[in-house]
C-alpha cells in the first residue's frame, strides 16, 4: 500500500520525518485528514494536535501552532511556527488563523 512521506518542521528543528499511512492536522477551519493519493494542496494551519499514523500501526502526536501545510505527490510538509510535545504556553503572535478572519 502506498504511504505518505511526512515532515513536520519548525524554525528550530525537524520535529518529525518519516513514513505514515495517514495524517490528521488542524487546518485553519477544522481538522483535515490526508491519505496517500491526496490532491496537491496548500492550507493554512491553526493550532492544535497533529496525528501521524505509522504504517506499522501506532501513531505520533504533536502540538503545532500556526503555519502552512503542503501536500504534493504523497509528500506532506507541515511548516509550523511552533511544534512540540506540549501545547504552547503562549501561542506565538500572528500565527493562529480563525475562521472569522476569512471572508
Amino acid at each position, binding site marked *: 500500500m502506498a504511504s505518505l512521506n511526512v515532515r513536520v518542521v519548525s524554525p528550530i528543528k525537524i520535529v518529525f520525518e518519516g513514513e505514515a499511512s495517514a495524517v490528521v492536522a488542524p487546518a485553519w477551519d477544522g481538522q483535515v485528514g490526508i491519505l496517500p493519493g491526496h490532491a496537491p494542496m496548500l492550507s*493554512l494551519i491553526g493550532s492544535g494536535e497533529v496525528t501521524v499514523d505509522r504504517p506499522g500501526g501506532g501513531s505520533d502526536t504533536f502540538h503545532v501552532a500556526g503555519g502552512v501545510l503542503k501536500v504534493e505527490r504523497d509528500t506532506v510538509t507541515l511548516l509550523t511556527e511552533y511544534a512540540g510535545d506540549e501545547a504552547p504556553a503562549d501561542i506565538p503572535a500572528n500565527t493562529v488563523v480563525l475562521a472569522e478572519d476569512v471572508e
Partner: protein
Amino acid sequence: MAGDADVKRRIKSVENTRQITRTMELVATSKLKKATDRVYSARPYADALQEIVGGLYSPALSEKYPILRRPDEVKRAAVLLLTANRGLCGGFNSNLIKQARNLLEDLRGQGIEAELHIAGKKAVAYFRFRGEEISTETVDVGDSPTGDDAEAIIAPVRARFENGDVDAVYLISSKFKSAMSTPPYTRDLLPITGDENASSADVYILSPSGDMILERILPAYIRNAVYTALVENAAAEQGARRSAMKSATDNAGDVLEHLTRTYNRARQAQITQEIAEIVGGSAALE
C-alpha cells in the same frame, strides 16, 4: 643580571595571555558546535518556506499586498547590517562593516538615498564614531538568537517598506559555509522576488485561498530570512573567534619559545662568565 628579571616577567605575562586565549578558543569551539547545529536545523524550514512563497507569487498579488510591491525605481533603500556584539574574533566584524560601507557608497553613488539599520554593538560603535545616521539599532541579541529577536529587528524595516518609505531592503550578514569560511554577503531581502514560471497556484487546492496564505506566510518568510541570517551570523562569529584565538595561542607559543631561549642563553652566558672569573682569579694567585 638585570635583563634576567625582565625576561622572566615577560615569559610569565605571555604564559598568562596564552592561557586566556586558549580558554577563549575552547569556549568558542564549544559554542560553535551548538551554533552550527542551530544553523543546520534552521535550514529545512527556510528551504521549504522559500519553495512555498516562490511557488505562490504572482504579479497580480503585488497590487494587493504592500509587502509584495515591486517599485519600478529605487529612490531610497534600507541596509540592514548584522554584526556581533563582541570583538576578539579576527576580521569578522570589520569584514561585515566594510561590506556595508561599500554597499552604502555604491547606492549613494547611484543617487539612491540609503539608510542604515544595525543589529550588533560593534557596527553601532563604528558607524556612530563615523557620524553616520543609524535609523534603528538592536544590541541585545545573544548567542542563540530567537524568532522574536528577528521580528524585533525586521519589524520597523518592514513597516517602512510597506509604507513606501524605502523601495528596497538589503541584508548584510555572514554566510556560514564552514567554520573556516564565513564570507560577508549581501542579500536582497525586499522586494520579494518570486519565480513566476514556477507558480504552482493553479495546480494546488488552496485553502482558504492563495491570497490568505501569502498574507500569513510572507511576514513569517521575511522574519525567517532574518532569523536564519542571525543564526548563521552567530555561528560564523564563533568560528571566526576560534580561528583568531587559535592563531593568538600559537603566536604566544612562538613568543614564549623565543623568550625562553633568550633567557637560557643569558643565564648560560652568566655562568660561563662566573667560571671564567673564578679560573682567572685562581690563576692570578698562583
